[in-house]
């Protein structure tokens, strides 16, 4: 392929559509929101741009820090669980034969063919008190009790007298469960892409030269697929931070995330300038995360060269 330095004209023209798309549908609307964040409500529907910083100072209230901290905690736990589950799955896919590999990749992408809301509602049906999980547990409980009775050792001590359904829904557990379920493909795919290009003979070499399985994993594989892991972490962490549908539908009384607060500013609170300021606060945090990421990857590249 020709370098962009050789065919400058061709490359200039070919980036115009994408550039125009991003300008019109991303930066322009974002600019409106940014300008709105320096405005004030003058009546029920009108906003006057006064250049005020009040919306930002208001966003530094303790309660919003608390909400942000909670959102971070939920998102970090989600990202960590995604990572732990994704690593073996990505390994499995990249070590499979070609046909199985395609099949497995389709399985990963398949959930995207269904709307997010429908997937979230079906989680409600699975997790609620009379949901599928509790139904299966109750069935097992009855069977185990019958066996114990049959063996004559049942005295009501080994298992509770009646089946107590687990509280799986409307708490932070169900929010994390829902987020992991929704965002895990974004972790699996970048890790898989890096693993797929990864020369498997490194693993053989490491094992042949006497490193154990675990040492090979942490000293050879993980450092080499590190870029994939970092991309996956960002792709999961950032949308998690702004999520609001999942905590709304699956969360309990303590599951408010910053996305819910922002959504309310645009709806029931009818305070678009403040909502805009909160949105931008979240965007600045995201930009900060990406900056940290780029600093780290730069450091890694430098280390490798040295």
């Amino acid at each position, binding site marked *: 392929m020709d370098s962009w330095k050789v065919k400058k004209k061709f490359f200039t023209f070919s980036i115009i559509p994408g550039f125009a798309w991003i300008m019109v549908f991303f930066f322009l609307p974002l600019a409106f929101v940014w300008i709105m964040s320096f405005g004030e409500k003058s009546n029920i529907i009108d906003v006057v741009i006064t250049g005020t910083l009040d919306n930002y100072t208001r966003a530094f209230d303790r309660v919003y820090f608390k909400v942000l901290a909670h959102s971070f905690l939920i998102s970090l736990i989600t990202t960590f669980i995604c990572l732990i589950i994704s690593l073996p799955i990505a390994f499995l896919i990249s070590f499979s034969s070609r046909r199985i590999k395609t099949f497995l990749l389709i399985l990963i992408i398949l959930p995207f063919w269904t709307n997010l809301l429908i997937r979230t509602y079906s989680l409600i049906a699975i997790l609620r*008190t009379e949901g599928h999980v509790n139904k299966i547990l109750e069935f097992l409980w009855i069977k185990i009790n019958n066996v114990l009775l049959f063996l004559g050792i049942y005295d009501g001590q080994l298992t509770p007298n009646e089946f107590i359904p687990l509280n799986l829904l*409307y708490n932070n557990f169900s929010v994390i469960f829902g987020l992991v379920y929704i965002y895990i493909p974004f972790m699996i795919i970048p890790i898989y892409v890096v693993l797929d290009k990864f020369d498997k003979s490194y693993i053989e070499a490491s094992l042949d030269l006497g490193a154990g399985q675990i040492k090979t994993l942490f000293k050879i594989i993980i450092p080499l697929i590190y870029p994939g892991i970092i991309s996956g972490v960002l792709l999961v962490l950032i949308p998690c931070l702004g999520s609001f549908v999942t905590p*709304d539908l699956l*969360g309990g*009384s303590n599951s408010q995330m910053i996305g819910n607060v922002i959504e*309310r500013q645009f*709806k029931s609170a009818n305070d678009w300038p403040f909502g805009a300021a909160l949105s931008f606060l979240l965007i600045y945090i995201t930009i900060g995360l990406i900056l940290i990421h780029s600093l780290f990857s730069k450091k890694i590249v430098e280390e490798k060269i040295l």
Partner: protein
Amino acid sequence: MYKNNRGISRRNLILGSSAFAAGLTLSPYSSNAYSSKEENKLNFYNWDTYIGEDTLSNFKSETGVVTKIDFFADNDELFAKLREGNPGYDVIVPSNNFVEKMIEANMLSPLNHNKIKNISNIETRFLNASFDKNRKYSLPYMWGTMGIGYAKDKVKEIPDSWSFIYESDKYSGRIAMLSEAADVIGMGLKYLGHSINSKNPSHYKEVEELIISQKKHIKVFAEDNGQDLLASRDVYLAQEWNGDVGQVMLEDNNIDYLIPKEGSLIWEDCLCIPNGAPHPNNAHKFIDYIYDANVGAEIADYIQYATPNKAARKLLGDDYNKNTSIFPEESVLDKCESQLYLGEDILKIIEDSWTRIRAA
């Protein structure tokens, strides 16, 4: 197969998008905005499952007007959609406090009562309203109450007080509150003996503290599914709207609904024409049609909410008219209030304390 499909669908996409573009450029001319006669169309923006099954198709066969219906889930969504200008709706169904808010924001067109001759079917007490003097902008569509839905097989006593929801650990972890700040906090005010339309910030502080200390006993602030949570016994007590609980009561004899002794709020959803409606004549025709006795009866029978249409009520039996969860007794109604539009400053107090409650 996959490849073939892709080729066809891309061509369809181009065809489709050019048709869409043509539609966009032609629509201002075909809407007859400047001629006296309107095209036979009507855009209706309504709550989901909130009209009779055949009402719209009957309206079409009677008048030739084709109605396109869109749904909103709450008043905030309706308001947010119309805030930056009417996207083309002719008839909308906001609740009383939002009617007041939209009048204040100059978003509604005055109704021409002469064009709505079936207005005579509406009960007289609905022909004036605190939120809309002489019904200049709105006419009542349906009304109802907020109360407690409860599972009779799980609750030992009749939960006839808001204290069961707002200040009790008796059914800890089995209580659902609504998720709208104004409704939850408003009812907290009522429980503490204040008006739900209080403008005193210290009252709001009291309610905030009350709900924060009750929070550990509340399972969920339910979006719009308190009745489903009751039906599945995820909760035993739910703060809910009468019609929503009524729907599950039809299927489950062990669920009941009551208005607590402290009183509650009465809501009223209204038919309004937003400013900039493209088909105002059809909108009036439609509103008139809704107040026809037979049409009103069909709607009320299907959606099981209380209708202000007295001619329609005469056509319906006792299981509708004598149902106390639809039509509470007068003595109970006397203790209820309607929510007023309290102004943006009070709304900010409510929303901020809601954020603190949810974060606590």
